[in-house]
């Protein structure tokens, strides 16, 4: 689906004759080149799972995290250019902090997603800047409104989701997600499925080594977003790896 902009793709302030803003599309391509990230919303929480591609064995484990905390009750998973994403994280944190200072409470995640979307969209209007090459997924849980998940892409468009995927294998991840009945699943079940999806869509040939990063927010964490604790992480990782082997085994069965 790629086409060359030839002349209309030099700045975000220009439309092409067929009504496209090429700079924004190129930013979306940047997201497509990054490691897959999935976010799932269930009955009592939201989980994030990120395929963090490790390009060098010399990195410390846990370097270049891709799941962040925005205030205590909101988690954000990112895909795309990591430096661009970190800017968005800072912006979101400032928004949440200003909201708390002015209005005395937690920023509603829908409102934050709108604010982040407006911010990213602003960078698609001018030739002096380039759009952010990152997509972000925001998730939160509280007792009154339940779990909520939003995703903002480089064009500044924001939607609410039951399940969303970003990055290189997002189509494959979406196919896997659609098989699940997300609405009725608990946080633990969601985590296992999300990790399994990451393992399934991971391309062993092209990207050798990856770290699985997990985050969750739900009733089980009393509405606080956090990295998944080590024991839960191990259990989930074991499930994902064994499910992967089962799948590949089943492919070898004789008819």
């Amino acid at each position, binding site marked *: 689906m790629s086409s060359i902009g030839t002349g209309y793709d030099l700045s975000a302030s220009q439309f092409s004759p067929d009504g496209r803003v090429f700079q924004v599309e190129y930013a979306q391509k940047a997201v497509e080149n990054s490691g897959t990230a999935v976010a799932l919303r269930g009955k009592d929480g939201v989980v994030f799972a990120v395929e963090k591609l490790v390009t060098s064995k010399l990195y410390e484990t846990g370097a270049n995290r891709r799941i962040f905390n925005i205030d205590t009750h909101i988690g954000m998973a990112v895909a795309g250019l990591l430096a661009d994403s970190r800017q968005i994280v800072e912006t979101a944190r400032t928004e949440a902090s200003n909201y708390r200072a002015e*209005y*005395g*409470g937690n920023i*509603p995640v*829908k*409102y934050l997603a*709108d604010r982040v979307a407006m911010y990213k969209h602003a960078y698609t209007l001018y030739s002096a800047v380039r759009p952010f090459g990152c997509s972000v997924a925001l998730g939160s849980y509280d007792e009154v409104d339940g779990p909520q998940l939003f995703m903002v892409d480089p064009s500044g468009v924001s939607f609410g989701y039951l399940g969303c995927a970003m990055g290189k294998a997002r189509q494959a991840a979406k196919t896997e997600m659609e098989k699940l009945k997300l609405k009725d699943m608990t946080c633990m079940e969601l985590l296992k499925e999300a990790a399994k999806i990451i393992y399934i869509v991971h391309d062993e040939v092209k990207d050798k080594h990856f770290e699985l990063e997990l985050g969750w927010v739900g009733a089980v964490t009393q509405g606080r977003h956090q990295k998944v604790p080590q024991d839960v992480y191990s259990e989930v990782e074991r499930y994902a790896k064994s499910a992967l082997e089962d799948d590949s085994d089943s492919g070898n069965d004789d008819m």
Partner: protein
Amino acid sequence: MACMMSSMSTSDLLSSDWLTSEHSTGTSIMAVEFNGGVVIGADSRTSTGAYVANRVTDKLTKITNHIYCCRSGSAADTQAIADIVNYHLEFHEVQLGEAPLVKTAASVFQELCYNYRDQLTAGIICAGWDRRHGGQVYNIPLGGMCVRQPFAIGGSGSTYVFGFVDSNFKQGMNQDECVQFVLKTLALAMSRDGSSGGVVRLGIITEDGIERRTVLGNELPRFYEG
């Protein structure tokens, strides 16, 4: 007792306190939480020195459909503040897409009353209902602190009724009991405080919005009058 007849001279006119004093909502105001909402109440006297500038004032000011504030202190200051808070909350409601929380309104009040504390004389009780925490009362007195209380009293008349409210408040009162509690308290305050009087204006705020009542002087509870 003031003289009924006094001869007016030019110096009297220039030095009369009602010509030179600021409008003050001398006031007795009150708000009580109950399960499902709040009851708010206020007297109706605005005094300019010894002259009652308005004997039927409405000191219960709308911030949103479900959040009101009771104003005491300078009438000008509190009206200006309430206007600003109203503006902020209206904007916020549109951006949020749902009714704002009472805590949000109280926080905006607090920002203003604290940051401009040297220029303002405003004692405000912000009370209302929201779907997250039900009925809530927030007291924001002179310095700009903000604290949630099961009930709050304010204004010059409140000083006379602290003993009464402390001894008569019970947890878990229903709507009617709260209304009676507010009426009795305000009646006592208005009876003793020269800057409070007139009628009692009540508001009962629940999920369905506000129900306003006015209790005239002759319908108020009567106590020992000496």
